[in-house]
């Protein structure tokens, strides 16, 4: 899922006819003007993580002075590893009631699901468990829009009547249109506010867009951070470099996540094989310096780029390369890329342990290239876990 910041999702909602509070974005408290603050405001840290309210990163301000002080407080915060660079300044809406609605894909039924409640301000997960009668869970048929009568039924079942029912019906249909139009993985409005003058406004929004669909959404360019689901903090410099290595060629994958500390560079694959390999090292009591996953028959350039990145991290004293027996990845290409990386970095496998477990397409040639470069090579004669044990044994000599 590609994360989208709240100002971007609010702007999209507004463009699609969903009422949202007036909003602007500031990069420092200096940008606040008295003029802007003639009415009460809500200040929110603009970071790509949820539960900002709990973290104290959403504050209310009645006056200009109060807003300045609170904005400064927010700018000094780091919310779940994300330093606050920008703050969203919104009109405070005149709340009568706080509702909740989310649209996502039900992983069990494999179709879209709407979850709605008029009991605002509490954890919806708890509400579903404790008071299911106060929550409507409504599945929508694929290939079809959300018809107005369906949206109306959802709110009616929650006891909404009169003008608010008409407004909420219209808003929910528009939200569902946004969900399908932009290939959302989630669209959550919490709270959906019923104002004192009986309007329905999306006061806070979380919108996630499916990375895989970005090819058909040029309008979202720059608004969604592709691949951002793979990180729990802003990308490190090395990670950004590795994203470039991966994006430079569409063939194969090369993913890199930096870990705290660790001495063993980790270059494994594919999706399942890398998980198994990482577990194997952890079980042996060592800590890899990174997680990486490469496979899908990457070209030599990509292999070399990833290997160099892994080896360039400070404190790395060895390299473990392991894959499941490959269906399509060419082992000779892997070998060429890795050997090129160690030669360009001037690494000597005699003093810097490298253990490889690679079998599959073209592995005879791969074995020759690895062994000629002085690298410890295992093919299908050893399991991944056996190779990991060999790696750990060799590391004892250098750490």
């Amino acid at each position: 899922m590609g994360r989208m910041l709240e100002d971007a999702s609010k702007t999209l909602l507004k463009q699609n006819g969903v009422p949202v509070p007036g909003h602007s974005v500031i990069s420092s408290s200096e940008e606040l003007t008295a003029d802007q603050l003639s009415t009460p405001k809500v200040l929110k840290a603009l970071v790509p993580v949820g539960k900002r309210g709990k973290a104290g990163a959403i504050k209310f301000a009645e006056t200009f002075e109060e807003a300045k002080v609170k904005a400064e407080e927010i700018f000094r915060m780091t919310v779940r590893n994300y330093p606050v660079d920008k703050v969203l300044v919104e009109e405070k809406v005149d709340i009568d009631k706080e509702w909740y609605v989310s649209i996502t894909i039900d992983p069990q039924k494999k179709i879209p699901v709407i979850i709605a409640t008029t009991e605002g301000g509490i954890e919806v997960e708890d509400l579903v468990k404790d008071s299911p009668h106060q929550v409507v869970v409504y599945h929508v048929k694929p290939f079809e829009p959300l018809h107005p009568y369906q949206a109306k039924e959802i709110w009616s079942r929650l006891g909404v009547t009169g003008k608010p029912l008409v407004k909420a019906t219209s808003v929910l249909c528009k939200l569902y249109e946004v969900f399908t139009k932009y290939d959302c993985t989630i669209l959550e409005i919490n709270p959906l506010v019923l104002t004192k003058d009986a309007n329905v406004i999306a006061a806070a929004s979380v919108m996630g867009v499916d990375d895989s669909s970005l090819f058909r959404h040029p309008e979202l360019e720059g608004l969604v951070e592709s691949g951002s689901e793979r990180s729990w903090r802003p990308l490190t410099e090395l990670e950004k470099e590795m994203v470039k290595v991966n994006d430079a060629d569409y063939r194969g994958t090369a993913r890199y996540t930096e870990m705290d500390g660790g001495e063993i560079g980790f270059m494994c694959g594919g999706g399942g094989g890398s998980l198994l390999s990482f577990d194997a090292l952890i079980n042996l009591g060592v800590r890899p310096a990174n997680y990486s996953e490469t496979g899908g028959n990457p070209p030599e350039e990509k292999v070399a780029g990833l290997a160099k990145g892994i080896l360039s991290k400070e404190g790395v004293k060895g390299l473990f390369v392991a894959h499941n027996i490959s269906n399509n990845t060419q082992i000779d290409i892997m070998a060429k890329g890795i050997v090129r990386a160690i030669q360009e970095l001037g690494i000597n496998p005699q003093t810097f342990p490298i253990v490889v477990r690679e079998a599959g397409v073209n592995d005879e040639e791969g074995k020759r290239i690895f062994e000629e470069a002085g690298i410890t090579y295992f093919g299908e004669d050893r399991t991944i876990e056996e190779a990991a044990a060999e790696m750990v044994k060799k590391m004892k000599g250098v750490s």
Partner: protein
Amino acid sequence: MAILIDSNTRMVVQGITGREATMIVDHTTSYGTKIYAGVTPGKGGQLVRGVPVYDTVAEAVKYHQVNASLIVVPPAFTLDAVLEAIANGIQLIVVTTENVPQHDVVKLLYAAKQENVTIIGPNTAGIINPKDRIKMGSIGGDRPERCFVPGNVGVISRSGGMTTESSWMIKRAGFGVTTSIGIGGDSLIGTTIADLLALFEKDEETHAVVTFSEPGTSFEEDAAQFIKEGGFTKPLISFVAGKFTESMPDGTVFGHAGAMISGDVGKPSLKMKALRDAGAHVVERYDEMINVLQNVLQVKVGDAK
């Protein structure tokens, strides 16, 4: 016997003229699997490694009575390819494509369900039945015999590569496989572990099943429930990779797109517990699978059928 594919399978490859597809066709035909037809719009009349290409699935059905489709088209065209196969009565569809937009997956799975069509994938390496030497997908690469030998174990894996590695572990233990299936690395897929356990239960030649799992989804929990309800009664040997991810922050993805933990849902330790409680042999280390298989099947190494 095997599940899903056998000598009655008549395969068409949708997207046959692409680079990846051509390689798969090469490997598949040299393994001995017959590919009856291919489909690429605008390329009707061509041949790919001797396989006739048509513009439509309708023609492939008309001239070759194909009943199973291997889909190797780019993500943007996957939904339409699946709808075309369903509309023409294809009963088994293997979707290899990775990164298919989720909303398209929702649609294609829904359409298949309406017509009782089996979808394997998306994002799968495919299926192989070594006894009949038939495979659909990249599974096994250029030398399927290396890892897939005929025998009495079924393999279900959430990772394509580990489908191959697990089948090789079974061979190393002295046994072979009836059918090995990569179910796809995504969280939204057509056929889950429980669905396949139901098929393996009915397959007389399958005496035990091995599963390879990852964090994320509730496939293992659902499979455990299915076993508890009596849906699967044969020995199940399970390995769940990615235990280290539990000590990483929530919502981070390692490996496949389906491998995301959210709250308690998707944790390997809970999957292992659920499977163990249901009576499965859950191995802590992958290599233990060899001993467990030998004990469970009570056949000496070398005596495997």
